[in-house]
């Protein structure tokens, strides 16, 4: 005699309890604090803030702890939290020219006002495991240099002055909010950039890489990559002026790509743009390359059929929270659909076998 399987509720409760225990790991090892994650796994925190679309290092660190270091899971926690937050109003656009740069490099000019500032980069480290870190994490203090005061001009502005680069007029309209209106295509560039900045780093990296390897190739020079803190200001209508409400760290990448132009218009370089929360340089460069590839129509280029040129393909598949949810849902029961396919294939096989038998008999 068969008694139907029951007990979904208890299984869920027990699974959650086990998960909590696994998250903590061996209790003879000290527990990680949220502050430790925030300070010492800062790049993970940055990625979670960028793809979670919420600038809050403490919450991002908490999410990483809760997610056992699974960054996509952490991003998911942040996104789900973010949707519950009320919106009072929008800030003014940040002015990256006024950034306090921790890092600022240009691959197009050997030197320029503001200088080349390497900053805290992995770039020229030799990737050798540092076994000293396994013993203790004490570090000698880094030497302190002089900082330059005042704004750091964008490298692009020098090209712009000579009209060597296509000008990017300031848009009048406030772009739609991707998280408040359904995505409809074709999307404006502003909307595409919104989507790219919260897109999965791995996906955008792969897309950008594909353009470098010839799928809609358009060689990009990194005119400028800058990372640092910018102030966020808000207009207070009652006051009639704007006030600073905080400071965020962002990474901005501007690329110079090959020309547009025609017989009547002199050629100009074109732009790709990346702007991402936190110190997220791989993502910002990738974003700039994908942005450029997606601009083919507006710049009068040919559709080469490359994945990175296909706005619908890129925008619909770049969100890791959407992707991971749908991918993982195939773990859920599908007994009913599978049963209907079982019946169908049995029926089709029966019919085919009957036909074969009939033909053999003739």
């Amino acid at each position, binding site marked *: 005699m*068969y008694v139907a399987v029951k007990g979904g509720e208890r299984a869920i409760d027990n699974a959650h309890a086990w998960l909590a225990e696994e998250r903590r790991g061996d209790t003879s090892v000290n527990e990680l604090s949220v502050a430790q994650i925030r300070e010492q796994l800062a790049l993970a925190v940055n990625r979670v803030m960028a793809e979670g679309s919420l600038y809050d290092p403490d919450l991002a660190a908490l999410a990483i702890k809760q997610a056992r270091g699974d960054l996509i899971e952490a991003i998911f926690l942040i996104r789900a939290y973010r949707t519950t937050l*009320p919106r009072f109003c929008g800030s003014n656009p940040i002015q990256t020219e006024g950034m306090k740069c921790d890092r600022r490099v240009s691959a197009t000019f050997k030197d320029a006002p503001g200088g080349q500032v390497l900053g805290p980069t992995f770039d020229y480290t030799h990737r050798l495991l540092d076994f000293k870190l396994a013993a203790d994490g004490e570090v000698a203090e880094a030497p302190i240099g002089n900082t330059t005061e005042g704004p750091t001009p964008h490298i692009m502005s020098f090209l712009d002055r000579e009209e060597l680069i296509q000008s990017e007029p300031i848009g009048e309209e406030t772009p739609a909010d991707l998280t408040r209106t*359904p995505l409809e295509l074709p999307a404006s560039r502003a909307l595409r950039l919104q989507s790219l900045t919260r897109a999965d780093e791995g996906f955008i990296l792969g897309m950008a890489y594909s353009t470098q390897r010839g799928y809609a190739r358009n060689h990009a020079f990194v005119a400028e990559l800058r990372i640092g803190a910018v102030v966020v200001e808000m207009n207070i209508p009652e006051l009639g002026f704007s006030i600073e409400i905080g400071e965020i760290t962002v990474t901005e990448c501007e690329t110079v790509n090959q020309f547009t132009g025609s017989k009547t218009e002199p050629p100009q370089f074109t732009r790709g743009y990346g702007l991402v929360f936190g110190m997220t340089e791989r993502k910002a460069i990738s974003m700039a390359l994908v942005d450029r590839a997606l601009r083919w129509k507006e710049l009068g280029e040919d559709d080469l059929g490359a994945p990175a040129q296909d706005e619908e393909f890129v925008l619909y598949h770049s969100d890791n929270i959407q992707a991971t949810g749908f991918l993982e849902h195939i773990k859920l029961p599908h007994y009913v659909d599978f*049963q*209907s396919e079982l019946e*169908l294939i049995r029926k089709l096989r029966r*019919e085919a076998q009957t036909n074969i038998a009939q033909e053999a008999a003739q």
Partner: protein
Amino acid sequence: MSDYNFAYLDEQTKRMIRRAILKGLAIPGYQVPFASREMPMPYGWGTGGVQVSAAVLTPDDTFKVIDQGADDTTNAVSIRRFFQKTAGIAVTEATADASVIQTRHRIPEQVLRSDQIIVYQVPIPEPLRFLEPSEVETRKMHSLEEYGLMHVKLYEDISQHGDIATAYAYPVKVEGRYVMDPSPIPKFDNPKLEMAGIQLFGAGREQRIYAIPPYTKVVSLDFEDYPFQPTKADHACDLCAATDSYLDELIVDDEGSRMFMCSDTDYCSTRRKQGHNGAQGVPYAEDAA
């Protein structure tokens, strides 16, 4: 209960979803874009259905959740708990007692009444998606009522397999206009799509809501010489002996022996309570003990 707004979503968001629902009801079968929110459960796990349920639930409602026809599948349990926690509403496993039913992959066997709402979780709302991957193109095809591609696909099925090779998510035409994906219900359930209840479909990840108003004409696509046939396993339920319900097939031993039981757990247990007993069932009271 003060941590969340009633049914989790804020009132602004609910209003936005209700507008989409009303538009969907006004244009049966048309996919209405809506600004789907990130929910605290993953996309693909019923976020569309959850948002629609959150928008229609009132404190007086009685809520039922099924997945594969069953109330006790893990994800159904999870969604039911979510609304118990965030809306504090009454829940039930009895189809007849529910005012709102959220479902994944089934329509209950018991006929729904005009005072009931059924909310379907939809993974891919676009019936033409696997024929044409571009959303821009498929929206154009719907607006031009250009459904030739679908008929060609069904025809190709017949020429290759001798039959229409779609067993679930079988496409329907709603009120003579829009071709619609009824969500991955088995085609056995398709005839039930003409019902007294309000049917709402929510696709969270794909940001679409659509609807079938009560008593709307819903026709499963077919050909005159290959008429649509709702099918189920050719057995009776081994627990309640029902011959009219959709059956799950279970492998019960190492030799691969099979048994069949109703996928609709409420339907099955109600019948057993009434004294129906299948080939492998024990009388209801005995089982409960």
